[in-house]
């Protein structure tokens, strides 16, 4: 475990003997407390269900995702948290047989409306993937890829520098911008991917378990970066790591898997301020998961 103070209370580290009462990971808020009510929402998710090839995967999720904050989606494997994330920038469109029902608005605009161009949606809503996936090109070209794609060619050097600075990578790579992106370490590659995303000046960054393939030190660097990006960007992060959610997010949505007529369907159980979810969960299932009784 990374963080010593929390590792002691981590459910995975605690001796999980039956009968013993587990405790939730210690919660220490990192930000100024945000109001419980979502003020300005960047996404409004209304009764969204997702099915793959007719088999339901996610059932009737509704949530308002606030602007400028970090929202964490947590839950056991197969609970649909990644599916939810991929609905927000229409990445699910790329999967054969995926169908999304319900309504998702982005700043009030329905992103699944017929005349909406998914490429335009994805340009505004950046994404960082589980495994660092820089292109097989130079560091510079990786960051410049998006701006070039969308004709933002003026001051390209400045854009690249700004994005790399924004991703806290500039000092490490400024002397080797022509080196291959793959030559960087895993954590640097992931920050390169974040730089690549913010080079397009999105206002939302979606992160799909961005630190799960990284070592503890790199993970902390990514978390520090997320704190830095908070405010300027709205961040939605899927994570397996509950401590991570507790450390960095303002709000947490807990998803779980439900058996419905023999099919495993993901559903949103609880969505609240992270502090509330981790210390005073209103649903029994949330508390069980957070204290490590399942998942």
């Amino acid at each position, binding site marked *: 475990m990374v963080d010593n103070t929390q590792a002691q209370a981590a459910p995975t580290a605690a001796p999980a003997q039956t009968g013993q009462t587990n405790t939730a990971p210690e919660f220490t808020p990192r930000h100024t407390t945000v109001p419980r009510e979502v003020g300005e929402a960047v996404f409004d998710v209304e009764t969204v269900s997702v099915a793959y090839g007719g088999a339901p995967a996610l059932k009737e999720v509704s949530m308002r995702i606030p602007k400028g904050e970090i929202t964490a989606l947590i839950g056991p494997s197969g609970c649909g948290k990644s599916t939810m994330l991929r609905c927000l920038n229409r990445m699910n469109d790329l999967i054969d047989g995926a169908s999304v029902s319900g309504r998702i608005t982005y700043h009030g605009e329905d992103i699944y409306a017929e005349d909406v161009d998914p490429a335009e949606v*994805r340009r505004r809503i*950046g994404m960082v993937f589980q495994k660092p996936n820089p*292109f097989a090109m130079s560091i510079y070209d990786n960051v410049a*890829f998006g701006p070039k*794609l969308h004709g933002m060619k003026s001051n390209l050097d400045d854009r690249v520098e700004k994005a790399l600075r924004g991703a806290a990578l500039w000092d490490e790579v400024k002397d080797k911008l022509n080196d291959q992106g793959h030559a960087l370490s895993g954590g640097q590659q992931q920050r390169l991917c974040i730089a690549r*995303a913010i080079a397009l000046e999105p206002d939302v960054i979606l992160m799909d378990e961005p630190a799960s393939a990284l070592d503890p030190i790199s993970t902390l660097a990514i978390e520090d970066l997320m704190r830095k990006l908070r405010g300027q960007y709205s961040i939605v992060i899927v994570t397996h790591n509950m401590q991570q959610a507790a450390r960095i997010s303002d709000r947490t949505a807990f998803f779980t898997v439900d058996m419905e007529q023999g099919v495993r369907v993901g559903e949103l159980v609880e969505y609240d301020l992270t502090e509330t979810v981790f210390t005073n969960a209103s649903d029994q299932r949330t508390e069980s998961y957070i204290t490590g009784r399942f998942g």
Partner: protein
Amino acid sequence: MATDTGQRPASAPSSLRSSGPSRYADPLFRAIAFTAGASVLVILGLMIGTTTRDALPVFEYQGLVSFFTSDEWRAGFSRTEFTGEYGAFSFIYGTVVTSLLAVAVALPLAIAVSLYINRLAPKRLKRPLAYTVELLAAIPSVVYGLWGLLFFAPTFIRPVMELLNRTLEPVPILGRLFAGPVFTTSYFTAGMVLAVMILPIITAITREVMAQVPRDQVDAAYGMGATDFEVMTKVIIRTSFPGIVGATMLGLGRALGETIAVAMLVGGSQRWGLSLFFGGDSMAGHIANTFQDAAPETVLALIAVGVGLFVITVIVNVLARLLVWRIGRVAGDAALRRRP
């Protein structure tokens, strides 16, 4: 073991020795495999040795440089000495021009077909389509020759040639490639049919390397708002570029050596012309067309042409390897290079 008393079973030592016929199996198999491997080298060595032995007197008689650069080819009829003129340039030109033409036409087609199969085709169409393209490779080349001669050339290629001739001949310099008169059997005709013949080879490999492009690279591009077209050009083609180069070279190798279809379609004259619409001959085509009636001295000359063709294909293959290796190494080097 818990029950080990320190006593060995009596049969232990003998059971460790191999017994029966199986003890000869490995050495025997080793010998067979060695023979098979060695025979490949022996056959290649014999082929190079005997053809070169026959070709050497021709090179001596004609002069090596003259053999490759002179376009004067006049078959002699002697049994005992060299009397003819054996400059093979016309055929070399024919071989190179038809093959390059074939690659120029087949490569863009192969890339388009591969992209369609990999990225755009409906799922249930992908396999049948890939299979159909590969089936093109199973058609015997003499069938291609006949089909080209009787159908493809008069109904399709001829009108295209006339159109190109009309529109491009007035263009300075470039126009010389499209100068008339237009012959139905010509470099162009042979090149077009060759293009169809090498399409399956190039497509098969291109399709394969495109399928290997990691999904996360594709997702990354889509995630930044790339369109299908941008993903294909900037990620798929770019990433599979070394493989496409290799596929092209393989197709080129096949085109250079293709004999019977070219012999039927290329024109069959012993002259050459700069224009693609000229009816000339290729190296392999000329061997096939004249071998039957050739006098002994000309047979040797034709063998020399064969050796020349072999040398050219070897050079192309080596270049291909170097190119693929070089491209791969540039990417690999860059990936490994780190600042101290």
